[in-house]
Structures are given as C-alpha cells and as structure tokens.
C-alpha cells in the first residue's frame, strides 16, 4: 500500500509542474494586467503611466518571463502566494478562511449527495420497475438537468419566502443549510443513477444467486452481499464528480453569499486581479488532485482486485 501511494505521488509531480506552468502562464497571456486595469482612465495619462510603472516594478512585471517563473515558484515555496493588487493585502490572508468555508460547504454537500443518492439508488434497484423506481429515476433525471444556480434561487424562494422555514439571510450554523442542500441534492442525481445501475448489475451476478440459494434474506442480499460491490463503482463516480462538486460550489457560493474561494474567484476574474485568480486556481487544482488521490486509495482499499503493486 505504501508503495502504491508513493507511486501515485510521484506521478503527480509532472502534473503539479504542469499546473504551476499553466497558472503562471495565465498571467503572461493576459493582455492587460491588473495594474493597468486599476489606473486606466483614473488619472491623467502621465500619472497613470508612472503609477503603472511603479506598480509593475513592485510586482516584478517588467522582468523576462522565466525569471518571473523562478521568483514565482520560490515565493510559493515560502508560502507566499503574492499580494492581491485589488485588495492590497497578501493573498493568503484572504484565501485562508474562505478555503475552509468552501471545504465545509463541499463536504456537507457531498454528505447529503451520498446519503440521498445511495438511498434512492438502492431502493430503486431493489424495487425495480415499480412506481418507486420510476419516481426515483425521473427525479434523478430532473437533477441532472437542473442548473445549480436556478435550483439555489428556487430554494431561497421556497424556503425563505413562501414557506418561511428559514430567514432570508440566515446567520450562524443555519447558513450552511440551503447552499449545502442546493448543491447536495443536485449532485445526488448522478450518484443515484449510478447507484441504481450498479446495484442492478450486481444483483444479476451469480454470487447473489448463490447467496440466495443459501437462504439469505432480501435485506441481507442487498446490504451485505450486493452493496459493497456496488459501492466500488459509485465511489469511482464520486471521484469523477468531485470536479463538478467543486464547480457547483463556486456557483452556489455566489448565490448564497457564502464566503468561500468560489465567490472570491468569480470576483477576482471580474477585477482582473491576476495574483488572486492565479492563487485560487492553484489551490483548487492541488486540492482536487489530493482528493482524487484519496479517492483512488480508498478505491484500492475496497476492491481487492486492484493491483496495489504493479
């Protein structure tokens, strides 16, 4: 197992370097930079030119690109993600607490998605072709087609205005409920679908017939014999869906004013604040990689057929 993890980590190295290059090159490709964006049209031509030059020197924007890259990586190694031009403070300060918020939201949404998705998928498979199955499948189809932002707005309308379940701007722990539910229910749809088809496939297998021939009850068949096998496939899909989940989190944050890095990313792009955008993308990509690795390791633990040592 240790060797498997090591091998995967080593494979990550070129990927990480690629990510670093891409995020760094982003800046190089941006036609106008934040410095220009801030000062353009605000001061007189001359003063603007001076201010821009000063800002550029401060951020080393006037050096050749490879030198900038080296500086960039060096800074990263020191934990310095740069300074947000717009906000006039180190990126790290701003990202820190927002990152935690996003992780919280994504985690809560994933939990909801798993619970709802697995439950409905398993039920639908166990009661195939009954009204339960049809309802679950249709709802699943709805979920896949529903834009997260629309659903979020609908939820706000439903819960805060028409049903008055929650205050319009909830404070404290309640604040996570709506965004997590919005994101979670939508993500539950593809999971439910996969859980259902995976269960149906597993229930058709010979070892289920053999277990039934030994007197296992329906419940034991589904939960003890079939589920562990079906779960493996579901887990693979969860790994693939993490990207969607992250993306959905970004959108949902803006709707519910949930102060996570998604909300920040959207703002950063609009402000053309390259340090901020760059840093957020870097952190998100690395997080995504780590989560994928964790999912792969979990998968290897669960399925004994996976070769741990190649």
């Amino acid at each position, binding site marked *: 197992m240790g060797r498997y993890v090591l091998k995967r980590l080593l494979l990550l190295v070129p990927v990480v370097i690629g990510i670093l290059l891409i995020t760094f090159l982003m800046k190089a490709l941006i036609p106008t930079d934040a410095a220009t964006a801030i000062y353009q049209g605000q001061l007189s031509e001359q003063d603007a030119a001076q201010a821009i030059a000063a800002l550029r020197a401060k951020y080393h924007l006037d050096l050749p690109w490879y030198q900038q890259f080296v500086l960039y990586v060096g800074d990263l190694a020191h934990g310095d993600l740069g300074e947000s031009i717009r906000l006039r403070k180190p990126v790290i300060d701003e990202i820190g607490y927002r990152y935690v918020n996003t992780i919280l939201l994504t985690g809560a949404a994933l939990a909801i998605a798993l619970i709802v998705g697995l439950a409905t998928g398993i039920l639908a498979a166990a009661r195939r072709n009954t009204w339960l199955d049809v309802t679950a499948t249709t709802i699943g189809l709805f979920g896949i087609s529903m834009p997260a932002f629309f659903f979020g707005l609908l939820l706000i309308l439903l819960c805060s205005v028409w049903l008055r379940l929650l205050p319009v701007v909830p404070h404290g722990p309640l604040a996570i409920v709506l965004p997590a539910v919005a994101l979670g229910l939508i993500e539950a749809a593809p999971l439910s679908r996969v859980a259902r088809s995976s269960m149906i496939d597993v229930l058709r*297998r*010979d*070892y289920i*017939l*053999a*277990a*039934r*021939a*030994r*007197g*296992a*009850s329906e419940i034991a068949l589904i939960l003890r*014999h079939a589920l*562990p*096998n079906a779960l*493996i496939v579901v887990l693979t899909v969860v790994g693939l869906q993490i990207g969607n989940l992250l993306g959905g989190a970004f959108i949902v944050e803006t709707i519910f004013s949930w102060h996570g890095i998604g909300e920040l990313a959207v703002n950063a792009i609009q402000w053309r604040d390259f340090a901020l955008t760059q840093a957020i993308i870097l952190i998100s990509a690395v997080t995504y990689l780590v989560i994928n690795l964790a999912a792969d390791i979990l998968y290897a633990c*669960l*399925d*004994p*057929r996976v070769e741990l040592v190649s």
Partner: protein
Amino acid sequence: MTMPSPRHDGPLLDIRDLRTQFGSGPGTVNAVQGVDLRIAPGEIVGLVGESGSGKSVLALSIMRLIQKPGRIAGGEILFDGRDVLAMSARDLGRWRGRDIGIIFQQPQGCLNPVRRIGWQVAEPLRQQERLSRKGAWDGAVALLRSVGIPAPEEKALAYPHQLSGGQAQRVMIAIALALRPRLLIADEPTTALDVTIQAQILELLRDSCRHAGTSLLLVTHDLGVVARLADRVAVMYAGRIVEDGPVATILDHPAHPYARGLLRAAPRLGQSGGERLQDIPGGIPDLSRPAAGCAFAPRCGRRASLALARCLEEMPPLDPVARDHRLRCWATPDATGDGP
C-alpha cells in the same frame, strides 16, 4: 450437526408434474413441461440433457430460485414430505442452505469478489449455527481442508480472483456442504473446468456426499460424468423426462431413441479414424410452441423414420417398463426395442 431423521419412508425429493414457464401470453416458453422425478436419501441421480432441455431450469425450480419473468406454473415438489411450493419466504430461507444446497457451473462467479474465501465459507456456520467469529473461521478452515484445498489456513485469507477454477469449485462444495444438507444439486459442476481437474472434482463430490449421506442431483450434458458417479440416470428432452432408470441400464442399453442417439454420439476411445461422429440430426423444438405429440418425433431416426403416426399426434406418458425403469415412447414400448 445431527441429521434429522426422515419424516417418512419414501423419497427424499418427490417431484410431480412440475411445470415452469417464462413469460406469458403467446410467446410463453415452457421450459419444464410436467417432470416427474424421485430421489431417494443418499442416492446419486444424474440428470442428462443437452442445452435447452430444461435441466438447469428444473434445478433452479426445485429450490424455487426461478425469478420473474419465469414462474412455476404447476405441479408439486415434496421434500421429505414437506410441500416446497407452499413454503413461506421465511421457511424457504431456513430450508435453503440447511436442507438443500446447490453448486453452479462457474464457481468463480459464485463467490463474492470483495470478501475473503474464509469468511464466505464461514458465513453459513456463523449464521445458521451461531458460532463465534473464531469458531466459524476455524470451522471454515477445516471445511476447506476436507475438500482438498492445500494450506487451508492461508488460502482462507485469499480472494476469489486468486483461485483457480478447480479450487473455486472446491470452495463452493465446501460452502454447499457446510451445513450437511440432505440434498445437493450440482448444475454442470465440471463443465467449465479443465479435463484433468474434472475427475478430481467429481470424485470429491461423490466422496463428500457418500460420507455425509447427502443425496446428489447431478445435472449435466456429459454422459461420462454420469457414468462415473450416478446410481440412477434420468434423461431429459424438451422439458420432459423421457427415460430414467439405473445407470447401467440406461448407459448400456437405453430404450428411448433420444437416449440411444446420445450414447451413439459420444466419441469413444478405440473408434477408428475413418468413422464419422454420429450426431442426432435436427434441433431441439421451439419450447414456446409445444407440438401435440412426442417432442422428439421429428428427429426420431433418419427423417423421423422411426416415428409412428401416433408419435406425432399424442404425447406418450412416462410409464414403467421394468422395475425401476421408466420410458416415454410409443415406438419402443418394451425397452428391448431394436434400434436403428
């Protein structure tokens, strides 16, 4: 586990006029059409037929493992005097595994891929006999040893994909016999295995069953398998038993034209190189459109030369022609009929 004494003298398994169908309406496939079969305690019965004869469906029907769109359409199954078709789901759950067991053709597919072998063998012990985890594990290792798995303590830790076909089938036998059932059904147990392993597995089956006093219903298309093991043989064609009797009788001088054809078709050692393999011309009938007469009539002899007019109109009954020998045929009613 002590075996309960039989509730009555008589066959352990008594099947009467069993009918199993798939689908409904005009396209219904009648896979089993009125089967009568008896198995005595401790007896090994071979059920022979080609693909499509309904023998596997019969095996599954006995244990009520037929699922939608199939269903048992009629008849009776008495196990030790108990009406199997009337059992509740709960009774079925207790009956299966304990009194009756089954092993299938593809042993590796029958094992749960994500659980260790040891636990799969231990499971019936734990559930039905309420042993502790340690006790069940030890019992499982002992069972694996008894079916000939070398180094059972280590093999018990393995996963199914790490076993060979032969080993997997041994494990299936261990699981099936764990609770000492009174009847074991083996559906083509060696068909998917190497020829060299087949003999070993068959011997294992025979020895285990004899040792435990378990009856064995051996479902196969291979006459050789039956010759090795069975006490009695039943030949099945198009959903019906067409002949049954002691193995020596059926294999040496079968009376039914189909059984004769099967025997002739089997390649023998010592056949000269120029001899053609004899097949039975034609194919099995369409089970969704049963003809009125004998199902084999169109293939009986060359171009149905042996079929009488009656054969095409009326289904012959399965009647005894000698003590312990039944035959379903109009054309050779006396069991010593001159064959083609």
